[in-house]
């Protein structure tokens, strides 16, 4: 899980330069550069100031990048939680498969 942001995207949408956004947020241009490059994680207060300056919801600006991890996790869960089918739930194809396997093993 990593904190990421889309400040650059919304800043460019609003037509602000880094300098302008820095002035509006009350920080230096270097701080905005560091935040956009994910080198610096801003405090909640600064995050709110930036969202106010960009007139955007803070949840759209900042997010946790765990979607990739979650997808992998759910795939792993699907594989491990696959329960074997009971005989009473067998369909025709399952019987055919069982028969072929038995023939192979014999």
């Amino acid at each position: 899980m990593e904190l990421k942001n889309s400040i650059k995207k919304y800043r460019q949408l609003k037509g602000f330069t880094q300098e302008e956004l820095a002035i509006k947020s009350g920080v230096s241009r270097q701080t905005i550069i560091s935040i956009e490059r994910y080198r610096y994680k801003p405090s909640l207060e600064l995050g709110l100031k930036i969202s106010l300056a960009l007139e955007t919801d803070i949840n759209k600006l900042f997010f946790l990048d765990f979607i990739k991890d979650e997808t992998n996790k759910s795939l792993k869960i699907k594989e491990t939680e696959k329960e074997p089918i009971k005989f009473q739930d067998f369909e025709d194809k399952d019987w055919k498969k069982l028969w072929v396997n038995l023939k192979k093993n014999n």
Partner: protein
Amino acid sequence: MNFSKKEISILIELVFSILFIVFFIPYFYEHRLISYDFNFITTKIVQIAIFSTIYFSIAHSVLEFFYKNKMINDERDDLISSKSYRLAYILLDLGIVVVLGHLLSDSPLQTNGTIIFLIITLLLAVSLIKSLFQLYLYKTS
């Protein structure tokens, strides 16, 4: 390499440490075996104070001339400053332990010249490392 106003002010501190090493440390090193009297020490302190004042006045005037924008101190600057001062504090603690160890030992080099030399070297080393670390943090974070 592009430097911001804040980074240039850190470089100014770095250069001051280097100039201090060049101009004053050789003298303190050569005279480390003698015991200074109070008048001499006062004279040296005044010399150092005058040198520092002139250097920083000129350096910051030149900085203000070339960088007209105001230096904003935000939370990132505070974070970097606290990290570098923390490192400097740890190094100073270690240095003081070394100096105290030297004082408590039976070494013949226990004149006040040696003590002054050790303390000045320690402070300079800590200042240098602190400035370098601050510059590194500004460039990488």
